[in-house]
C-alpha cells in the first residue's frame, strides 16, 4: 500500500469559526477508511477542502505518485486527477435518465468539443451496464433519476463515482435514509470498490462502520482525535466522551 493522499497541517476558519484545526491525514492506495465524528466535527468540510470546494487557510495536500499539490486547483481539475465525490445530500441530475447520469460520469474526455462530437461506444454502454448491475439499478436505466427512491439515488450517485474510475473516492454519508437491506448492499459496493482504490467513507451509523471493517479516523472539532480499528477507537476515553457520549444523548 503506497500513500495516495497526504494532508498536513490543514486549517480553515469560517468568519471566526474554526471548522478545521491543524488536520493531518494519510490515505493509501488501495485503502478503505471510515471517518466518524459528531455533527459539526468538520467531516464534510474536510471533503470540501480536498475537492477544491473550500480553500484552506493553511496546510498542504499532496496527491498521486508525483505528489501534486491540490491547493489552488479548481474543482474540475481536481476531479480530472481522479478524485470523485458523493455528497451528503444525494445530488443526481433528476431530469435525466439513470443511463444519462452514468454516461456523464464515465471516464471520457471532458473538453467541450470532444463532448459535442462524442459518439457512444459499445464499450461505454457495457461499462454502464456493469455499473448498473453493481448498484442494483439495471431495471431503472431508462427512468428519470428524479423518480428513484432515496436509497436508489444514493446508489446512483455511488455508481456515478465508480463510472469516473477515480483513484480516490470520497463518500459522504452513503447510508443515510437507507433500509437495513440497502445498507448492507452499500457496504458491499464500497468494500469492493476499495479493493483497487482509496475510499474514504463518512458515516454516523456505527453498525455500518463496523461492517466496513476498516481503519477508522475520529474527527472532533476539526482535528483528528483518534485513529485505528473501530474497537480501538471506541475504547478511547476521550472518544467515548465527545462522540459516543454525545450520540447516545442526542441522535
Amino acid at each position, binding site marked *: 500500500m503506497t500513500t495516495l493522499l497526504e494532508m498536513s497541517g490543514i486549517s480553515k476558519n469560517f468568519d471566526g469559526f474554526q471548522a478545521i484545526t491543524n488536520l493531518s491525514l494519510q490515505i493509501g492506495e488501495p485503502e478503505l477508511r471510515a471517518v466518524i465524528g459528531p455533527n459539526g466535527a468538520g467531516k464534510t468540510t474536510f471533503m470540501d477542502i480536498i475537492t477544491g470546494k473550500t480553500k484552506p487557510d493553511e496546510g498542504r495536500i499532496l496527491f498521486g505518485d508525483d505528489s501534486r499539490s491540490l491547493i489552488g486547483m479548481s474543482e*474540475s481539475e481536481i*476531479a480530472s486527477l481522479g478524485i470523485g465525490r458523493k455528497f451528503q445530500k444525494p*445530488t443526481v441530475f433528476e431530469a*435525466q435518465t439513470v443511463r444519462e447520469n452514468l454516461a*456523464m460520469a464515465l471516464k471520457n474526455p471532458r473538453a*467541450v468539443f470532444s463532448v*459535442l*462530437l462524442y459518439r457512444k461506444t459499445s464499450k461505454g454502454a457495457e461499462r454502464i451496464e456493469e455499473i448498473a448491475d453493481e448498484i442494483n439499478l439495471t431495471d431503472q436505466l431508462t427512468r428519470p433519476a428524479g423518480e428513484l427512491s432515496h436509497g436508489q439515488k444514493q446508489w446512483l450517485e455511488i455508481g456515478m463515482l465508480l463510472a469516473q474510475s477515480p483513484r480516490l473516492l470520497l463518500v459522504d454519508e452513503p447510508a443515510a435514509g437507507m433500509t437495513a437491506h440497502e445498507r448492507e448492499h452499500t457496504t458491499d459496493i464500497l468494500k469492493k470498490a476499495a479493493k483497487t482504490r482509496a475510499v474514504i467513507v463518512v458515516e454516523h451509523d456505527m453498525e455500518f462502520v463496523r461492517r466496513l471493517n476498516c481503519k477508522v479516523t475520529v474527527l472532533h472539532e476539526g482535528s483528528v482525535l483518534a485513529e485505528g480499528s473501530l474497537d480501538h477507537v471506541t475504547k478511547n476515553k476521550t472518544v467515548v466522551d465527545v462522540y459516543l457520549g454525545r450520540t447516545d444523548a442526542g441522535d
Partner: protein
Amino acid sequence: MSQTPPPRKSFIVRNPSVLYFLAALALFTVFVAVMSEATGTGLISTSFVKTLGKTLCFCLIAIAMDVVWGYCGILSLGHFAFFGIGGYAIGMWLMYARTELIVAQSLAGQVIPPTQQEVTDAIGKQIFGVVGSSDFPAIWMFADSLFMQLAIVVLVPGLLALVFGWLAFRSRVTGVYLSILTQAMTLALALYLFQNDSGLRGNNGLSGLQNIPGFADSGQDVISLVFFLASAAALALGYVVFAWITDSKLGNIIQAIRDDESRVRFLGYHVESYKLFVFTITAIVAGIAGALYYPQAGIINPAEVAPIASIYLAVWVAIGGRGRLYGAVIGAALVSLLSSWFTGGGAPDIDLGFYKIQWVDWWLVLLGVTFALVTLFAPKGIGGLFDKLVRKS
C-alpha cells in the same frame, strides 16, 4: 451481463419531433409562397408576408434563447443586442450600396465625370446628413463589401458574447446577477447607438433597408417572398443544429449545468467553457436572425436593442415552454403575431359602457397576466401542454 446494449438509433429516430417540425415548416412555407402576391394569387398581402418572415426570425432567436436558458439555465436578458448588431451590420451594407447606386445615377449626367472623392462625399452626405455630418466613421470601413458585412454579422456578436461571457462566467456570476449584467450590456449598446456621433445615425437608425441594391426592378412582392423563404431556411437549419447539439452528450452536460452546476464541476467538467460555448453560439444565431429580420422590417434604430426587447424574448420562450425547441417556436410565433394584431389595431376594442378597453394600451397587461398565469399553472408552457396531448393519444 447477458443483456446487450440496444443498438444506437439515428438522430432522427431519436428525435421524431425534428421531422414533424421540418414538415410543418415546409408546408407552411409552400402555403405562404403559393398564396403570396408574387405568385399572382395575392391572398396573402406583401406586408403580411413580411410579417410572417419577421416572425420566423423571431422564432430563430427564440430557439437560441431556449438553448441558452431552457437547456443551459443561463437567463440571458441581452440576446436582442446580438440580434440588433446583426441587423446593423447588414443594414450598413444595404444603405451604403443603395446610396452609392443613387449617387452614381445622379452624378452620371454631369459633363465632367466625378472623382472618387466626390462620389464618397456625396454618399456620406446622403447617409449622415441627418446627424449633421458627411464623413464616414471608421466602423463603416467595410460597408461597401457585402462579404465583410456578412462576416461582421457573425463575428461581432460572437466576439462580444465570447468576451462578455468569459468575464462573467469566469467570475462565476450566475442567476439574477448574470441576468442584470446582460441587461446592462444591451442597455449600454442602446445608449451608445442613440448618440449621434456613434457613427450609426443616432436615433434615426438605418432605414430603407427593404430596398435591396441591384434589385431595384424586382418588386417588394418578390423581395419579401425571397426573404421569407430565406428566413424559413435559416430557421430550419438553426432548428436542426440546435436539436443536434441538445441531443448530443453536450446536451446532457448543459442540462446538468442548469440543474446543478457545482455537481457538474465535481464530475470533472469545466462548467465555464460549456456556458461560454452555448452563450456564444446562440449569440451568433441571434445575429444571423437579426440580419434576416431588418431587411424585412426596412428600418432599424437603437430602440430595437432596448432592454425590454430581450425581456420579451424570455417571455416568449417561457410561454412557449422552456427546454423544448418547438415550444420556443410556438411561443415566439404566437406572442409576436398576437402582439402585432393587438397593437396594430386588429383586435376590436371592448366597450364596457363605463370604460373602453383599447388593446393598444391593454395588450401589455394581457401579456403580463398570461405570463403570470403560465408561470404559475403551466410552468412547462404551451409546449408542455402539447406534450401531454401527444402522450395521451
